[in-house]
């Protein structure tokens, strides 16, 4: 059926006299308002502006920002209270139940072990060595994982081929690589770095892939419509849009790097491998020094928390708040 097209002219002023009476009345109103518009464009526009401004302020969500001090207190006080509570309970158990000190040392023994490790400089050396290796390993993992992730996210054949392998590697405990690494690299730092990379790279790459996957398709369409080239699309649209997912991949990558590092340090000792926190843990075990073991575990835990609190949490909070992705209660 061909489209039957009728063109009608509504309310043309010139033809008004031929139109029905009620039409004429409407005409008059329309031409009248047109004339009024032409005559008083500015006031009409002003009226619209004020109307809009009024509606905007009605619809605006009032923000109730809390001060930085208050926010920090809210974040810091509850965990510290919990920590104190746990230590008190631990000490109370020691006092009341009196367990064998070589099996269950009290908080004071553990603190003593920390102090003696500090005074013999072992603690400082171990923390610095481990942090240095963890940090360097993490940065190398970022440098390797990011391009892999980008390739995986943007190139379908590569993803089909490599995607399952990378997910599998993420599940595989990276400690499993330690024996192989020792055979390949001997007792050197290369062994430690290799294990750290095998732990962190898949997490970082996968984080970037899921970040890219979660980009609303509409944003890419807007990029196309705005005339972005392939490179501009990647740098100005895809990467910034994928940032939250990428960042959580980085966080997970750090966690994997830190864990893998400890595992590698416990297993691979001696040679040219420096003295890290894992080595300190292993050394305490060989001396059957449970206080030393517990003290080292606490230090490892504390370093992990510190990196999260000082480096990742502030960046993440800023990232999410700027995009309005943060629940009101977490601000």
């Amino acid at each position, binding site marked *: 059926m061909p489209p039957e097209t009728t063109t009608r002219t509504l309310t*043309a002023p010139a033809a008004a006299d031929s139109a029905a009476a009620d039409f004429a009345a409407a005409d008059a109103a329309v*031409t009248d308002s047109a004339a009024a518009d032409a005559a008083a464009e500015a006031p009409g526009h002003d009226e619209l*502006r004020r109307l809009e401004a009024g509606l905007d302020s009605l619809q605006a969500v009032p923000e109730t920002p809390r001060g930085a001090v208050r926010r920090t207190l809210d974040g810091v006080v509850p965990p510290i209270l919990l920590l104190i509570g746990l230590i008190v309970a631990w000490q109370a158990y020691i006092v009341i139940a009196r367990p064998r000190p070589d099996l269950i040392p009290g908080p004071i023994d553990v603190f003593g072990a920390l102090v003696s490790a500090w005074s013999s400089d072992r603690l400082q050396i171990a923390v610095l060595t481990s942090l240095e290796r963890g940090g360097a390993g993490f940065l190398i993992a970022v440098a390797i994982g990011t391009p892999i992730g980008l390739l995986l996210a943007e190139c379908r054949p590569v993803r089909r081929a490599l995607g399952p392998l990378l997910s599998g590697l993420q599940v595989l405990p990276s400690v499993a690589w330690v024996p192989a690494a020792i055979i390949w690299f001997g007792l050197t730092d290369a062994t430690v770095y290799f294990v750290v990379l095998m732990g962190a790279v898949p997490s970082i790459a996968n984080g970037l892939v899921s970040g890219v996957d979660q980009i609303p398709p509409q944003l890419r369409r807007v990029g196309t419509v705005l005339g972005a080239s392939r490179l501009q699309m990647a740098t100005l649209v895809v990467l910034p849009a994928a940032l939250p997912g990428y960042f959580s991949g980085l966080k997970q990558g750090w966690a994997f790097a830190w864990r893998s590092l400890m595992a590698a340090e416990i297993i691979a000792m001696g040679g040219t491998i420096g003295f890290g926190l894992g080595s300190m843990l292993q050394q305490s075990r060989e001396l059957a020094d449970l206080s030393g073991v517990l003290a080292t575990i606490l230090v490892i835990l504390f370093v992990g928390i510190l990196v999260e609190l000082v480096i990742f949490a502030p960046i993440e909070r800023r990232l999410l708040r700027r995009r309005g992705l943060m629940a009101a209660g977490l601000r």
Partner: protein
Amino acid sequence: MTTDPARTSLLTAPPASVAVAPTEPTEPTAISIAALGKRYGTGPLVLDDINLNIEAGQFVCLLGASGCGKSTLLNIIAGLEKPTEGTVTVASGKAAVMFQDAALFPWLTAGRNVELALKLRGMPRAARRPAALELLDLVNLADAADKRPHELSGGMRQRVALARSLAQDRKVLLMDEPFAALDAITRDLLHEELERVWKQTGRTIVFVTHNVREAARLGQRILLMSSRPGRVVNEWTITDTGSRRIESPEVARLGDEITDQLRQEIRRNAA
């Protein structure tokens, strides 16, 4: 109507010769579509034999029920999809597009969102900021330039999106149900805003909607599409250039007429 038409018309009724002349076909063609057809894969025909000439500076509303392919047609004009047969020519090159969802980049402020469009258009860095502020002022949002999208209401976001589309400086603006997700009060204001911006900038606008009243309120030319396959079955031309209100009797009358036809088209699908 807030004013009594009979009375005010006595006072200010212009002589017939003053009445603004409708835009005659002397205007050059902005978009021409010839024998356009579209199907996805081996599926049914989505668009069938669409022939259209849209004059420069015209405000065209594309109206139809769901599934009539009006958004597909818009995407084809925008170059986001390829037609299966026929041709689409946009005289001025590419077209700017605005979607139902404002789709602002959430990591950029309102001002930066507009600036990004200017950047992709190739405007030098120094000129972008003032140009973006000017565009935001055009949609009455100069004060919101430093706000982020999540801090803006739906209507404000849509206005930023409008400013961003205008930043592309393309003569043709395609709008895909841009106000469908807004509340009635906001939508009513944005109709006025859009009409003002259209008159001020002289853009050719193709506005896709499923809201009959909206089409009757805004369009100079209203195209009614049938569904499955999508064809243009009727069109109305409104030649007065004054503002209409969505509540006004002439909009209502035109709306009723279009609705009747639309329902007829929908009923045809019942069998």
